[in-house]
């Protein structure tokens, strides 16, 4: 209990099977009720979002015979932000005979997540990972291959086996196009009704069940209600609450947040992943940050000058004046330490005044040794497109001058709470991919987001949703049902209010300021003092937003600022909850360093006895107190230990 939140009942049942972990998913699948193929076409499923999770779910549900209605805010389902994932996708194929197994992938993921994920889910993720690769190859995904024609693998951030499948630096693009093409086939067959340039603005709940959504046609501004037997949210993460992140500009929390307001619990909102290898900010015009795949750390060496305030060009700084700090502090993992460790180490050296580039917020990632050892053509073959991208953005040639990198918000492990069946606390509302609180715990390992999105969409959801739909078709909801009318009118009123305020500040100016508060106080390092200050600042800024924001134009037209205003309004509420969640979790877990919780040598200190749970929050109106429900995490197989990469 505190001034900022209430303690509620614990979550008693996450619907995970017990017994031997190796057979839990098999037993759950066998226990799931099935829907007669002839009845499937009478059941409608709404899928919001068309990234890896939403695209694969929509295609698979349509192949199974359900009537699917799909929505995305972009102009085509092929553009969802999964497309930007670079590095790869993990699978426990053990094609390298290097000791990998489903159990090892499970073990690595639970440990990598700093013991804050649900074991049953993680095991299932590792189990279906092998099917994902088979599925994608069958679709024609052009993975990298060896000369014998078999698939190539590489090791990736923080693992000691080579289990990552990849397609140059564009793995997300190729996997997404696979799912997109499967979707387009179903659209052509009339099994998916695709609604591009449509944004979900409200969830419709009737008699405790999710039965539809309210959407805005982003071209005409028309508001419509879309009804169904079940709703699947695959709307991605909320990294854009920080304004600057590696997310696409349109990524937002609105679909999830609307569901949260209607009763879905939001789990671990403060768990955000800060990726160590992004291109640093170049000025106040900056609108987003660009990730450089961390596969670069396989060959690049990270360093800063040994001396603070050393502003010489990198070539003028001798070997003995450089600090290869990851190799120095973490000799056994070196430059390949997990993302959270690498990010915080970069922040630490910059805080010491040893950062490089404009503003001192950057560290070098140097390929000189790799070019010397392997030759430029080999480096080019491996990383050519990443080097080009870097040069295009910065105007510097990384073959000649070391890259400058700095951590940036990249992924959100938090999201809507779901049980083992991926169902939220609202019946019939399923959440997949980054939008759910996911299987990554407090820290996501590289190449596991693509794995989770496709596991959820291709293999998990289609089974578990059938168990729910087997109880249907549910009673038809009429368009004039009070819950439907209310949802529609609340959306209209909110849009009108944005347009009426007619203040003197742009949506972006508020968003930028909110993001700055979040980065400073709820980013890589958090403290009680900073978080309390942030909550006050967020509340003040939110009130100012509702009085001073200026949204030009009208509602009945393409109006990109009206779209942004709605998203930023929801980010304000989310930001406050993130700070409350971060405040209550007085431990350092994953990449979230809590200043008050550290070992004598400054490393992160977890408190498993006090915080070994998922924090699932129940909505409260702004300025109200959200209620905390805890799902206790049991570790039967992978026993919590201190992560050490030294």
């Amino acid at each position: 209990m505190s001034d900022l939140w209430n303690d509620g009942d614990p979550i008693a049942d996450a619907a995970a099977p017990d017994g031997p972990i190796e057979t839990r998913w098999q037993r759950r699948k066998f226990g799931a009720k099935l829907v007669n193929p002839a009845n499937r076409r009478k059941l409608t499923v709404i899928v919001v979002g068309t990234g890896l999770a939403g695209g694969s779910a929509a295609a698979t549900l349509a192949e199974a015979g359900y009537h699917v209605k799909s929505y995305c805010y972009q102009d085509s389902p092929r553009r969802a932000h999964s497309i930007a994932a670079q590095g790869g996708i993990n699978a426990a194929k053990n094609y390298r005979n290097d000791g990998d197994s489903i159990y090892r992938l499970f073990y690595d993921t639970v440990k990598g997540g700093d013991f804050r994920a649900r074991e049953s889910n993680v095991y299932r993720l590792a189990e279906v990972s092998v099917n994902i690769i088979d599925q994608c190859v069958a679709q024609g995904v052009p993975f990298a291959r060896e000369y014998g024609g078999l698939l190539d693998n590489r090791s990736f951030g923080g693992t000691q086996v080579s289990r990552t499948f990849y397609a140059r630096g564009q793995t997300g693009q190729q996997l997404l196009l696979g799912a997109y093409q499967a979707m387009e086939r179903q659209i052509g067959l009339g099994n998916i009704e695709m609604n591009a340039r449509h944004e979900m603005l409200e969830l419709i709940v009737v008699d405790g069940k999710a039965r539809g959504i309210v959407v805005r046609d982003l071209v005409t501004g028309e508001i419509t209600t879309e009804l169904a037997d079940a709703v699947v949210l695959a709307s991605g993460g909320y990294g854009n609450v920080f304004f600057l992140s590696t997310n696409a500009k349109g990524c937002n929390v609105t679909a999830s947040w609307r569901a949260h307001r209607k009763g879905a619990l939001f789990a671990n909102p403060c768990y955000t992943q800060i990726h160590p290898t992004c291109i640093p900010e170049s000025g106040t015009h900056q609108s987003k940050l660009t990730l450089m795949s961390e596969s670069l750390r396989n060959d690049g060496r990270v360093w800063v000058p040994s001396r603070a305030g050393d502003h010489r060009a990198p070539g003028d700084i001798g070997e003995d004046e450089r600090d290869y700090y990851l190799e120095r502090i973490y000799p056994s993992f070196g430059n390949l330490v997990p993302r959270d460790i690498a990010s915080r180490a970069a922040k630490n050296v910059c805080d010491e005044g040893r950062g490089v580039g404009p503003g001192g917020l950057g560290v070098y990632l140097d390929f000189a040794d790799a070019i010397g050892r392997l030759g430029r053509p080999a480096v080019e073959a491996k990383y050519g497109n990443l080097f080009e991208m870097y040069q295009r953005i910065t105007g510097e040639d990384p073959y000649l001058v070391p890259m400058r990198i700095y951590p940036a918000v990249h992924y959100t492990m938090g999201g809507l709470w779901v049980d083992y069946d991926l169902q939220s606390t609202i019946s019939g509302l399923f959440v997949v991919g980054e939008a759910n609180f996911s299987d990554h715990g407090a820290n996501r390992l590289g190449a596991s987001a693509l794995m989770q999105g496709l596991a959820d969409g291709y293999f998990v959801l289609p089974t578990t949703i059938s168990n729910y739909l087997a109880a249907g078709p549910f009673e038809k909801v009429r368009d004039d049902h009070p819950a439907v009318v209310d949802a529609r009118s609340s959306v209209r009123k909110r849009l009108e209010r944005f347009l009426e305020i007619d203040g003197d500040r742009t949506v972006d100016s508020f968003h930028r300021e909110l993001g700055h508060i979040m980065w400073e106080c709820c980013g890589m390092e958090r403290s009680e003092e900073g978080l309390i200050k942030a909550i006050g600042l967020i509340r003040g800024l939110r009130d100012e937003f509702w009085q001073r924001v200026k949204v030009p134009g009208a509602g009945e037209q393409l109006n990109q600022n009206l779209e942004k205003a709605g998203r930023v309004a929801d980010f304000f509420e989310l930001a406050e909850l993130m700070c409350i969640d971060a405040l209550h979790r007085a431990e350092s877990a994953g990449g979230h360093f809590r200043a008050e919780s550290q070992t004598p040598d400054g490393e992160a200190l977890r408190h498993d006895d006090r915080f070994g749970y998922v924090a699932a929050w129940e909505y409260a109106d702004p300025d109200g107190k959200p209620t905390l429900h805890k799902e206790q995490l049991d570790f039967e197989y992978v026993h919590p230990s201190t992560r050490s990469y030294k």
Partner: protein
Amino acid sequence: MDIQVRVWRQSGPSDKGRMVGYDVKDISPDASFLEMLDVLNEKLILDGDDPVAFDHDCREGICGMCGMMINGVAHGPERATTTCQLHMRHFKDGDVIDVEPWRAAAFPVVKDLVVDRGAFDSIIQAGGYITAPTGAAPDAHATAVPKKDADAAFEAATCIGCGACVAACPNGSSMLFTAAKVAHLGLMPQGQPERDTRVLGMLQAQDDAGFGGCTNAGECTTVCPKGIPLTLIGRLNSDYRNAVRKR
């Protein structure tokens, strides 16, 4: 740096549209072209004007959502670069820059610089896939794929569907887009069973959508941000002839 942009303003599909000039002052050379437009829009909003509508999303050159004619060239003066990855350091202080939407019969203007590229999706629906329903896949190593073929398929599959090829083509043809997908799937062993139906279906769909024919002008490959080569159109034509012969 200070520049002037002359931007195509069109309030909707029925509006005739016109070029309107705006001064944009104090732009950093490190800003991207879209960030320059962001700065312009912030000013327009505060001045009570309608901001310029333009499509964009990932801003890292991979989603294919952005795209505009910059001084008459799709995606602007830099080769192999999307609009979002074009930076102001490639322009000079005092430059006057014309900014227009993609112009093609199959891509109607929605508003300002925003066009409707739904016709691309309809081409994919007509065969731009391999039929492989979830769950039916054999082990990934069941079929070896020569590295040369896998690499060539990947190169073709890097198309981001931005539409620059169509916008640059004097005929408004989508042949490079279609050819890239036909090559990607046709180079993989998994794509062989549908190879003939694919090429016939996709070419019919592009005709139906109102795209023009190919006369080998080569403008498409010149502006393609992913460097999809013109030779793939030759490959497409060859696949088409084979499919017709067998029909």
